């Protein structure tokens, strides 16, 4: 049996109420009021599609032996690199083996499901197994555009394999259309779109029914066979008319999360799929449809194993982990849409030394330390000579991955002198629960969330952005674990 083994989700902590955007930019196009409802999820200043995909992938792979994972497919239209495989960054953050299949998918908003189909095909063919498909997007609309209000940031991941399947793959059907409703050229930062009425009626209104009819015909199924039907569409009115036209009943509908996340691009159908799996029961058939430059449709049937998958953060857990971003200018700053003064200290050059990074990539991407085989002392970064004063043996250590175990705050501060686009810089010493310690930046928090001894998770984040060379550099940061969170 081939299908989904596990799922994971990620929605960034910060949510921007759309009226905050409209309050600043509504003057330029009052009609945007129609889109100014609810809130959108906003990646923190140190998050992007790669870090969100890594977070969703980690949630998905939680509890699985990383050596069993046979590949990572990263899907996004907002990858931080055109050349440099982002899937390798996600795989690195998962501390996986390196003799695995890694690939990036992009170009269209349907690329998440296309990556999923490729993974399913690979497993079906027996050429790969346990592939984590992680889709993320962090798309930008220009200031005052409808897209700025509609888009939200998020990620979702599915692990595809042939054992312990929670949702069996039953088949797929795809279309490809050069229907340019949205596009970005190779140099563009911001989304451009054609007239909304055309997108709604000729795009969503025609292609969603087309692909659903196509897959139902192909596999001899009717829409009433499905417990849930998932398709992205940020137009509320279009959803209603598509549902009516196809006969999709209210209990089959999966919420688009438009009011709490926004249109998360390549991650959108995947996020909805994760949410459906969180609520699914054995026997449920799920129809998963994506949209963008054509459509993919996939059929899954939930199995008894769904109850054996240990709870994870998924979509619901992430939605509960939230904080208001009540400042539109801060959003613009985080997304580098405006230039702010971080002082002359902020102009000091960051050097990314690629030969060093390759040499230390297990340290930097996988948060891999060393564990002394003689005395058991864990050390980060890895040390050749054991630091334990009563041990001190040389070259007798083995690698140990420290990212999953979390840690506790040993000391902390909140620094107004350090240059940052999100001051104050909060950082301190963290003792890993598995042993060892390191000085980390803290993120997704204020200094009031910290106390000596309080628990933290480790999160893969953007460490810095070098604008001169267009380098996004990644490392781990510590995130306080909210009270009551699992």
């Amino acid at each position, binding site marked *: 049996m081939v299908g989904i083994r596990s799922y994971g989700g990620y929605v960034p902590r910060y949510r921007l109420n759309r009226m905050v955007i409209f309050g600043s930019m509504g003057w330029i196009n009052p009609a945007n009021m129609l889109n100014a409802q609810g809130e959108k999820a906003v990646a923190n200043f140190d998050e992007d599609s790669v870090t969100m995909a890594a977070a969703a992938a980690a949630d998905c792979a939680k509890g699985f032996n990383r050596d069993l994972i046979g590949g990572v497919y990263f899907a996004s239209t907002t990858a931080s690199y055109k050349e440099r495989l982002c899937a390798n960054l996600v795989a690195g953050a998962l501390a996986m083996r390196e003799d695995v299949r890694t690939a990036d998918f992009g170009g269209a908003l349907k690329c998440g499901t296309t990556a999923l189909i490729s993974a399913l095909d690979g497993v079906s063919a027996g050429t790969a197994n346990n592939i984590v498909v992680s889709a993320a997007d962090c798309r930008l609309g220009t200031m005052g555009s409808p897209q700025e209000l509609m888009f939200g940031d998020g990620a979702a991941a599915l692990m595809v394999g042939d054992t312990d399947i929670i949702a069996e793959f039953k088949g797929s059907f795809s279309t490809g259309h050069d229907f340019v409703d949205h596009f970005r050229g190779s140099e563009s930062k911001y989304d451009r779109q054609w007239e909304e009425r055309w997108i709604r009626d000729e795009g969503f209104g025609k292609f969603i029914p087309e692909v659903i009819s196509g897959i139902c015909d192909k596999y001899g199924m009717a829409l009433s066979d499905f417990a849930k039907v998932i398709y992205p569409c940020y137009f509320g009115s279009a959803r209603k008319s598509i549902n009516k036209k196809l006969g999709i009943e209210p209990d089959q509908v999966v919420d688009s999360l438009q009011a709490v996340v926004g249109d998360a691009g390549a991650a959108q159908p995947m996020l909805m799929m994760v949410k459906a799996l969180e609520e699914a029961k054995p026997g449920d058939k799920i129809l998963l449809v994506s949209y963008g430059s054509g459509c993919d449709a996939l059929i899954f049937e939930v199995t008894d194993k769904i109850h054996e998958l240990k709870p994870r953060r998924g979509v619901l857990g992430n939605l509960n982990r939230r904080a208001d971003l009540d400042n539109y200018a801060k959003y613009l700053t985080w997304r580098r849409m405006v230039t702010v003064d971080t*002082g002359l200290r902020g102009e000091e050059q960051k050097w990314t*030394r690629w030969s060093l990074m390759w040499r230390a990539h297990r340290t930097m991407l996988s948060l891999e330390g060393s564990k002394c085989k003689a005395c058991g002392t864990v*050390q980060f970064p890895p040390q050749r000579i054991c630091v334990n004063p009563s041990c001190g043996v040389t070259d007798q250590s083995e690698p140990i991955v420290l990212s999953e175990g979390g840690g506790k705050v040993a000391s902390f501060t909140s620094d107004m002198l350090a240059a940052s686009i999100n001051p104050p810089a909060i*950082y301190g010493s963290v003792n890993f629960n598995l042993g060892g310690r390191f000085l980390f930046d803290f993120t997704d928090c204020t200094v009031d969330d910290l106390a000596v*001894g309080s628990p933290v998770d480790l999160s893969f984040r953007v460490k810095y952005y070098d604008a001169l060379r267009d380098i996004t550099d990644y490392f781990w940061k510590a995130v306080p674990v909210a009270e009551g969170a699992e």
Partner: protein
Amino acid sequence: MAEGIRDKVVILGMGCTKFGERWSDAPEDLAVDAFTECLSDAGIEKKEIEAAWLGSHFDEINVGKGGNFLGMALKLPLIPVTRTENFCASGTEAFRGACYGVASGAYDIALALGVEKLKDTGYGGLPDSPAFGQQYAMIGPNATAPGMFAQLATAYSAAYKVPMEKIKEAMAHISWKSHQNGANNPRAHLRKPIPVEQILGAPMIAYPLGLFDCCGVSDGSACAIVTTPKIAKKIKPNQDLVKVKAIQVSVSSGEEALYTDWDGSGMLTTRRASSKAYEEAGIKNPREEISMMEVHDCFSITELATMEDLHISEPGKACDDILDGFYDLNGKIPCQPDGGLKCFGHPIAASGLRMLFEMYNQLLGLWPEERQVKNPKFGLTHNLGGIPNQNVCSIAIVGL
């Protein structure tokens, strides 16, 4: 243990510039000023100096690398010049090199000079630099010196269950004291007394350190000429001689940064270096025997923790001693009689020699009455470079 250098080396002369924002002075100007005063005080000619050690820290904006700066600025006649760089201990390291040069018998007269020109940086605080190597620069936190030292306070509060309010009060007393002392010192960078309320109400720099918990960033230079007791006696037959009693350095072993036994509330290096220094100087009970100190108060919390690390205040009790006035100018052990890094200023590699300049003048009884420590016997200087979890500590003890 080796017998050490106690009483083998004498400070023949010293010089020190005014520290501060010396916008119009190049590092060469600062070095020449300190050297000229020092040479005159030593009562020798330049050609009698056989070897020199130069302390400087920030390559980025200061005097560059190597020993050439000193040879060329002072026109030293092709003698050996060795540059010492060991964070904030760079000046004391230059002094240690010169003292060892003399104590070993290799040279009769040696020069140690520390200089730092920080105010060409262009922004407040110390220059950003990859101080711990390229890998750390890429993965270490987005940190500054105040933020790294501020963590001493959160860790100290947790380790000794001392409420942050009490720590803040003790830190404010430390800064208040340094401002009182600095106000009396014409060479100090900051010369204004500041009331405790203003210190406590100052803007936060790095929690829990406010503006007045942070030392001045300054330009400056300080200098010493050292020789043997025999030669010194010949040159200065009619005065007391300030002898070097001990110089010790301790460098982090990774125990603090990597091994979780260290609780972050104080410096292991200072504890070791001070124990070794007392041993070398023959001091049994530092709380009773040390007459005065200049310690590395880069931040008020550093001074607080250092009082315990020097084995003078009991662990967890520094706040009580500080608030009791034990370290005030009229207290049992005056600490920072010249205003300290806080107010005299902190041109990194000049600071160790500046502290010795203060001890030297105090021991010789050369200061005006209002800031002269009464009958001092031993003076201790202390530098702490780097950050609490990976640092360099130097301790020097000088006496009559």
